[in-house]
């Protein structure tokens, strides 16, 4: 159990760090969104799963509450994060930001 928690925490930290690096390294808004959304969501899932495992292992009212509330936070993250990214990408595109070195831009052609 302990090993699982350690592994999950390590995965979570790694992918979150990857998200931050992607945010810094990629050239434009959309690619940054790719990195930021996927990596941080994935990393947060593993971090929270570690907490959930810890909570269920601890048991009792305290651990159960911890696990369930962490799960609910996870659900909210899974619901809101991609939606927020989508809204940002849509807003950015409508606001006139073109993708960096795009080979094709069908959305631009539609307008």
């Amino acid at each position, binding site marked *: 159990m302990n090993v699982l928690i350690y592994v999950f925490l390590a995965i979570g930290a790694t992918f979150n760090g990857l998200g931050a690096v992607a945010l810094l390294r990629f050239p434009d808004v959309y690619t940054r969104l790719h990195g930021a959304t996927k990596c941080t969501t994935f990393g947060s899932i593993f971090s929270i799963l570690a907490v959930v495992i810890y909570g269920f292992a601890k048991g009792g*009212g305290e651990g159960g509450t911890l696990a369930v509330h962490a799960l609910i936070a996870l659900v*909210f993250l899974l619901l809101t994060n991609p939606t927020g990214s*989508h809204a940002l990408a849509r807003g950015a595109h409508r606001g006139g930001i073109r993708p960096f070195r795009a080979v094709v831009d069908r959305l631009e052609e539609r307008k």
Partner: protein
Amino acid sequence: MSVVVRTIARLLLPWVLAFGGYVIMHGHLTPGGGFQGGAVVASAVALVVIAFGAEGLKGQKNLFSFLEDLGAIAFVALAFLGIGSTFFRNVLAGGGGLFGTPVPFGPNPGWLNTGGTLPLMNWAVGLKVLAGLGSVVLLLALFGGKEDG
């Protein structure tokens, strides 16, 4: 906003309301209380405004102001409840009855029906805050709109 945001906002709405209610209702047991829960529910109003447009809520302005006055009056009324001894006296706490279950000292899991007037005040303030902040967002969103001069 696009269909994705609208659908997610729709799905999120019961969650937000239930969670806001939880925060208000468990204000005397867990972190939270009237303000925080009210702010959560008010952000649901903000969510509806942003996802579906403010025009749909235009008719609700009066409702919001009514709810806000109601919450404020309820709060003052609860404070007046204790005027037999002093204003703001928590007369219901510790004396048995609906909200008066006595609480032992020290860490415990917490029971909902304790706290005397505190849960009721949480509700009053929550009502007030949700209506107030909601109507602030609504008023600012509606100002200068289509028909508005």
